[in-house]
């Protein structure tokens, strides 16, 4: 196979695997966080506002790991450094 074909196939596969596996952890983590926040809210409805704002912040923190894998997937698909290297050769 030509190097360009290998790079194309590998980057598409890499992006799919990166998104698939990368989002598992953050999905589980967000589910856990939301579930325990809901539990806490139902036990202490007076503190619901404070719990909600803390939950949003922690959800954003957890989501960051999935967003990193999304950025890597975009990088691999659209701004692949090896692609330019082999085209220029």
């Amino acid at each position, binding site marked *: 196979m030509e190097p360009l074909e290998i790079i194309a196939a590998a980057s598409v596969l890499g992006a799919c695997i990166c998104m698939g596996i990368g989002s598992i952890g953050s999905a589980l983590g967000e589910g856990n966080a939301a579930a325990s926040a809901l539990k806490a809210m139902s036990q202490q409805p007076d503190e619901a506002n404070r719990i909600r704002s803390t939950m949003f912040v922690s959800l954003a923190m957890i989501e960051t790991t999935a967003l990193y894998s999304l950025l890597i997937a975009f990088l691999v698909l*659209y701004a692949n450094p090896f692609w330019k290297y082999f085209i220029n050769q």
Partner: protein
Amino acid sequence: MIKVDFSQWWDIPLTDRSIGLQNYDQIIIFSCDYFEINATIFNTWIVMALLTLVSWLATRDLNKKKENSKLQTLLEELVLWLQKETRENSGSKNQQYLGMALGLFCFILTANLLTFIPWFRPPTASLSTTMALAAIVFMAIPYFAIKNAGVKGYLKKFIDPLPIMLPMNIFSEIFSILAMGLRLFGNMLSGVMFASILSAFVPFFAPLTMQTLGLLTGSIQAYIFALLALVYTSSVRNEKETE
């Protein structure tokens, strides 16, 4: 030699657009020799002009009337809400953080909500804008820390539990800010990308739902960015005065 080219800014991005990271900042609207203004900067100007116009309209005749206008009530409600948030998060001297947090919140919220105009590319979906916003917070952290706790108190944060933690603390300082910029960028870019990819398959109704979801994500992201900026900047403060 001045060239003005609005054709790429004007075309609706959902119909037929090449999807890519690199062409997002490369839509040149004005160019004068080597000086170029791209679509991101132009859209930032639109957001700035809108914010300035609304605040000017709301505060135009404050003294003359006895009754508040609707716009003024709305803005007062926004300021009061953010004031409550700062009071919960950043101790007794919370008033000084309010300007920064409100500015960041209003800018990001307006930029994100304007995506309901089809040809408007939100400036927050470009890495340069979000990193500039994160750089503001990065500069604001030492400013507020030195103002509140002195140089000694600020430097003490880096060797907080033990002096051996110094490299870790510096890394976490830099990467928490980087993560802030990347988070906003990733969220907005994924919203834009997802809508444009979906519209290639299912033209009319499926992208609409995703755009609606994007409005929710955009407002939550604006809230989170302002809240994280508050938390980071108020992490060092004089402990005696807070208790």
